[in-house]
């Protein structure tokens, strides 16, 4: 009796799990099927939801036209540099805010956090002028600099540093280590899960950022994938197969990165609690 109840309950749960999975993944699977059927109209009615044949022609054609290696390379450079800088600066800034005692500490933190509510669009014009004044227009640096340190990441890292027992810092001091060494060799390893979280969040943000690169890069050859994709979408809005294939190419790398890092990421988010 109890066993059959369990099976019914399990079936019920799997049913809803699958319903939500179709809801979240369905659009991507449909896009995959569109991209694999060259010549098929996306807007045929009734629509072709499942592929009736498979052909990689769209991928080959759009790759010939767009030189995706170049855009992937641009995106990798921008994302990796952005993530490294962001982790470095955020951890450096968050550390004293969490463990040091000095006048104005709370005031600084409050001012930082309050800037999080200002809409990003309000700063676009002035940031554009700043980048121009710095003379880095049309370079990767122009794309990376404004997001090289974010208040959200500082906020996250400060929380993580607060959780590290004070004794660790004291033990480093007794051994005569400099503050910088204590930070680098003792504190940073303690906040690895949080670093994984901001690292992946920042990587996604960098990988998917399309507007700011369009604003500061004049040379479309320097565009990251997302910007190139919105460019492609504008240019060939009638060639569905190409756009579908291009979209798949741009989406797959970040999904792969997520699947490989998700273990650390999800551990970081849910802390030490096991699921």
């Amino acid at each position, binding site marked *: 009796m109890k066993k059959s109840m369990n099976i019914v309950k399990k079936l019920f*749960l799997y049913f809803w*799990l699958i319903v939500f999975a179709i809801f*979240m*993944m369905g*659009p*991507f699977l*449909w896009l995959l099927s569109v991209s694999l059927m060259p010549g098929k109209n996306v*807007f045929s009615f*009734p629509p072709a*939801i499942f592929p009736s044949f498979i052909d990689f022609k769209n991928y080959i054609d759009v790759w010939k036209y767009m030189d995706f290696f170049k855009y992937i390379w641009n995106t990798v450079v921008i994302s990796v540099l952005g993530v490294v800088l962001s982790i470095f*600066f955020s951890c*450096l*800034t968050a550390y*004293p*805010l969490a463990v040091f005692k*000095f006048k104005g*500490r709370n005031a600084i933190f409050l001012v930082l*956090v309050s800037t*999080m509510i*200002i*809409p*990003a*669009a*309000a*700063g*676009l*014009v*002035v*940031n*554009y*002028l*700043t980048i121009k004044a710095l003379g880095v227009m049309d370079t990767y640096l122009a794309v990376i600099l404004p997001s090289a*340190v974010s208040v959200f990441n*500082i906020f996250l890292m400060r*929380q993580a540093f607060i*959780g590290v*027992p*004070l004794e660790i810092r004291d033990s480093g001091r007794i051994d005569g280590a400099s503050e910088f060494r204590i930070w680098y060799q003792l504190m940073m390893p303690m906040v690895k*899960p949080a670093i994984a979280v901001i690292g992946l969040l920042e990587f*996604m943000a960098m990988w*998917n950022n*399309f*507007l700011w690169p369009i604003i500061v890069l004049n040379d479309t050859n320097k565009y990251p*994938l*997302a910007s190139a*994709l*919105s460019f492609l979408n504008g240019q060939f809005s009638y060639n*569905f197969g190409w*756009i579908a294939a291009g979209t798949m190419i741009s*989406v797959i790398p*970040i999904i792969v990165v*997520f699947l490989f890092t*998700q273990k650390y990421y*999800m551990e970081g*988010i*849910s*802390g*030490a*609690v096991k*699921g």
Partner: protein
Amino acid sequence: MNWADFWYLPNFSKGALQMKRNHNSSKKINSEAKTAWLFMAPGLILLCLFVFWPIIYSVPLAFTNYSVIAETEFVGLDNFVKAFHDVDFIASLKNSLLYVIVVPFIQFFSILMAILVNRKMKGIRFFRSAYYIPVVTSMVAVSIIWGWLLSQNGVINYLLMYVGIIDKKISWLSNYNTALWVLMFITMWKGLGYYMMIYLAGLQAIPLDLVEAARIDGANRWQVIRKITIPLLKPYVFFCSLISLMGAIRVFDEVFVLTSGGPGNATLTSSLYIYQQGFQKFNFGYSSALGLIVSVFIVVLSVIVFFFNRKGGVNPY
């Protein structure tokens, strides 16, 4: 309650309570302050340049007619007067406010999903990852996909007609009455996984013996959810609501790619309008003024939210 309690890494926050006020000599504190500033300097310099400077500099800019074409002149309050007579700007403010409706829906569905995946079952990791995929993909890609799905001859219309919910094709994104709601749906769909993970962390932080004790006392599943899960999840709900509220008011990407504010100004949001004035019409001065107005608006709104939460017993700082 303090920040540490409502943040999603509860195990990280215990140290905050252990922090002791030790009475150091003032000399030591001085040297500590110096080191602290050295540590923070690189980050603060960048923040000053790209976070604080835009806020400060947009104030004088808002009182000029700065653009790339004409000579820059001080115009006094002209931009602000113009803004409050600007039909499009008023519409964009209204749309941005309307967008906030998405916040409770996000909380409801992501909590539901978190409860669904918060159990040990075969393949549960697969489902957690599957729900997270929309979060990691770019808004450009997501917009392209949903733009097709939702078009006149798209899959959504076919499915809805097949099931019998609608009897006529609707072009969801170019219909004045549906466009904004459809965008809100896409925002929700893309964000669900992110909030689900935070709620999942919250659910897993709930001590199991508490739930078991309630079960032994004869509480049913719904009572456990209402009396234990929801109260303990409250700090997470507050955090997620705050983040999604800010996201909703600042919404830009999906609107920019899918509708550019149209049809008419049905989906024009304040962020998009600020962008259009700045980078499509090159009215930098006017754009800055709009940015200022929206910022003040949001600051007032957040103060109200904080005020209500203070009353509710949650101290956000």
